[in-house]
């Protein structure tokens, strides 16, 4: 009987974290709102480091404002900064929405972001007598102290703050809310593709697919670079209260989904990302359950192509290969299940987050795949490194931060998750859905062929 062996961090020190702080997740969520701007209430590093990380991963502009907290705010509080920051953004950019995102500094000095935002909104209303439209700008306080949770929980706080402030009951719609998690444009587009084939309109909370993968068309671009095409409109977020249901593509977005359920009776389904066959099957069943739509032939054909790809190649090239997976708790879970479907062994998984569902999910996958899984829980990249040095694996799967280790050990690294900055195109391709499964299957198999097969061997001729 196979099972999991949970290994928690034995040091206080964190070395090469596999998580970052809450504000990044909140900024990501706001970037997915149409014509919206995140404003970080903190030091300039809090915006600059995140802009740098988004820019290098998506290779797109990531326009994030900052309230520029300094020593005086540490003494007198940051009210002036957040107030002036919101007003300057409102006047200069006239966005539809501003997300006022707190950090460690603004939380420690005790800034009441909700109170400050209320006051500022009143001022905007007065100012709107002179400058039309200022009163229409939604300003959403998003409390994300950096010393609580991680960027995954920050994402959840971001989405939850948006829906709690905006969602309002009205006519029921046939839409289904999707909370994608911190994923790539390719993933969101694949989800929309699946839903379109099923004839379901998705309401993505929030939709970063176009903002983080936008066309270069300076002659016709209707909006400026800080207002890219796409994103979920404020009106659509308001309408999320009237959807048939909500499906999350990550378990860390639970509170956003359940908030809609509690307040507006929108049934919530909290799921792992639809990575691989069984998880995508489950996603289709969930859609069917909420909408009563049938799964069309076109999707079943796509499924069939993935099955064909696996049937043709997995047993021949991938069977028995040991895989170590690290990073995002939910992507890691999805990947572990998928490599199991390919006949590989997910012998070790590692996450930096303290996700409650991670270990139970791994127990299920262990039973399903018959693999004993070492679960490095709330760990870091250094623990991962020490482990794979002592327990060799054939393939590593995770973000680019494993690249130097992969090179030192000569183990192929399949780049998945955030951030991927040393290769191009990874943000454009899905890892979810049947199409994502094909992409992953191809990446993994080609890496195995490259590394474990002699280039001149006759086996590569047929």
């Amino acid at each position, binding site marked *: 009987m196979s099972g999991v062996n949970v290994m928690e961090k034995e040091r206080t*020190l964190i*070395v090469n974290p596999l998580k970052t702080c809450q504000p990044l997740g909140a900024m990501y969520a706001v970037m997915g709102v149409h014509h919206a701007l995140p404003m970080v209430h903190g030091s300039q590093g809090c915006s*600059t480091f995140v802009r740098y990380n988004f820019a290098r991963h998506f290779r797109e502009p990531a326009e994030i404002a900052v309230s520029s907290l300094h020593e005086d705010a540490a003494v007198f509080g940051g009210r002036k*900064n957040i107030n002036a*920051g919101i007003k*300057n953004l409102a006047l*200069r950019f006239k966005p539809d929405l501003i997300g006022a995102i707190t950090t460690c500094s603004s939380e420690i000095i005790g800034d009441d972001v909700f109170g400050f935002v209320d006051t500022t909104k009143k001022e905007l209303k007065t100012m709107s007598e002179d400058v039309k439209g200022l009163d229409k700008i939604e300003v959403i306080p998003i409390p994300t*102290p950096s*010393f609580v949770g991680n960027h995954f929980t920050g994402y959840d706080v971001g989405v939850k703050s948006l829906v709690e402030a905006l969602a309002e009951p009205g006519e029921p719609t046939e839409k289904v809310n999707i909370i994608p998690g911190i994923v790539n444009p390719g993933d969101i587009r694949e989800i929309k593709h699946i839903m379109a084939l099923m004839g379901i309109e998705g309401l993505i909370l929030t939709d970063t697919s176009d903002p983080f993968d936008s066309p270069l068309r300076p002659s016709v671009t209707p909006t400026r670079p*800080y207002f890219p095409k796409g994103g979920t409109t404020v009106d659509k977020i308001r309408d999320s209260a009237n959807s048939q249901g909500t499906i999350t593509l990550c378990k860390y977005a639970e509170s956003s989904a359940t908030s809609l359920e509690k307040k507006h009776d929108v049934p919530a389904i909290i799921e792992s990302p639809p990575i691989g066959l069984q998880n995508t099957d489950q996603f289709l069943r969930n859609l069917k359950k909420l909408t009563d739509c049938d799964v069309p032939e076109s999707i079943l054909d796509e499924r069939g192509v993935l099955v064909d790809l696996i049937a043709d190649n997995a047993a021949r090239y991938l069977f028995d290969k040991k895989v170590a997976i690290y990073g995002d708790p939910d992507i890691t879970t999805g990947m572990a299940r998928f490599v199991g479907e390919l006949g590989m062994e997910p012998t070790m998984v590692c996450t930096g987050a303290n996700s409650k569902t991670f270990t139970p999910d791994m127990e299920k996958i262990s039973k399903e795949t018959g693999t004993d899984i070492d679960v490095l829980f709330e760990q870091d990249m250094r623990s991962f490194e020490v482990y794979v040095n002592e327990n060799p694996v054939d393939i590593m799967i995770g973000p680019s931060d494993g690249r130097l280790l992969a090179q030192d050990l000569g183990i192929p690294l399949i780049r998945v998750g955030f951030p991927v900055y040393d290769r191009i195109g990874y943000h454009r391709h899905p890892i979810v859905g049947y199409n994502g499964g094909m992409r992953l299957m191809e990446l993994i198999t080609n890496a195995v062929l490259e590394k474990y097969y002699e280039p001149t061997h006759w086996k590569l001729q047929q």
Partner: protein
Amino acid sequence: MPYKLFDVDKEIPERKKHTYVKHCSDPEECMPHCNTTTIPGSMSERGCAFAGAKGVITGALKDVVHVVHSPVGCTFYAGGTKRYPTSPNMPDGSKFPIENFNLKYVCGTDLMESDVVFGGMKKLKQSIIEAAQEFPEANAIYAYATCTTGLIGDDMDAVAKELTTELGIDILAFNAPGFAGPSQSKGHHIANHTLFDRLVGTKEPPTTTPYDIGLIGEYNIDGDLWILESYFKEMGIRILSRFTGDACHDELCFMHRAKLNLVRCQRSATYIADLIKEKYDVPYINVDFFSTKYCAENLRTIGKYFGLEEEADKVIADRMAKVTPELEFYKKKLTGKKVYIFSGGPKSWHLAIPLENELGMEVTAVASQFEHEDGYVKMKNRTREGTLIVDDPNSMELEEMITKDKPDLILAGIKEKYMAHKLGVPSIMIHSYENGPYIGFEGFVNLAKDMYSNIYNPVWNMIDFEENPAPEETEIDVESGETPENEAKVSK
């Protein structure tokens, strides 16, 4: 009026004094207002003091473990912005056992809510002890305050002092929390002083020669330092201490033994050169190695100082012979191209004249995230009439400049790069480079090549779908008479 208010700044008129249009007849005091706090709600290019300390000054050291005393974010980001390669070579001839140690690891205390409430000193102490156990190869441990620990008031110096005795290696505390000062410049300042106070003069070098120099403010971005090192080596000059590119901890401890200090980045590192001069009487000269002319001039100055003029001339002649033909080609291609330099600070004045004189370009705007007055004086002196000099520019201003003025190229950071592209203008990363190194003779060719390949990237001629494409002959480049295809071949 020498100052300009951008259209996009009409709601924040205080920005006007930060944007100066150069007029040769203006009095000296006319220059952008600088080194003041950013207006809240801006999309500023600036970072924080912690980024200035760890990201710029200390992150380049090859044998030091860095412990960031913070919630996890600052540690994660300190790891994500490392850009300085290192060699394993140590001053005593040995090799540091872990290659690119500084690029591989970053440590932190991962502070939680309870630490914020009860204080993080215990956690810091435990973390530093564990860092020493985890990396016994390391020769020192540097710990960093951040916004959180600055605000909760952890006494990091006390922990550093206690553990230096206990662990038997230098433990340093850098008190440059993110909110300190208007920009990362404050972090440079604090790090300079901390390194001077704690280290300089505490150790002696294994050997000394009459030709020992300190190379200060050179961080080895994309291998810049190694280019300069090769020149010095051929001249018979030894770099005793690097501050801090490809340096080891001990080199900082014997910086006082250099015969001459060269200050390369004069924004981030003049502080320590001044301190060493004052206390140890080691003279320093400001140097400029960007472009062939500055590089040659400065090598001659250094050669003269040490009586090695002939050796300097030999290096210059050798390199000039190698780079001149290529530079001539690039000059032909780049002449008349309009370029902006949006650097962190000094590169805006380092590169302005070289791009104009040696490559024929027109520098019509320069900007800096964190320069002080002395830097803006140089920018003003080295730019042409009418050049826009902007302090702490923000995204909207850059957009206005690009859409109105349509430059051919922008030298800026990764945050600006993709925005410029969306507006149809190519951009090169000037902070961490694209295909560097950019310094010295060979580096200047690399920069010219990157500028050329970006400006002449065929895609810029294909941005829009053409319903009725013009007849083929109009595609021939009027200036050179070459078709885009031929261009691609020349660029190799």
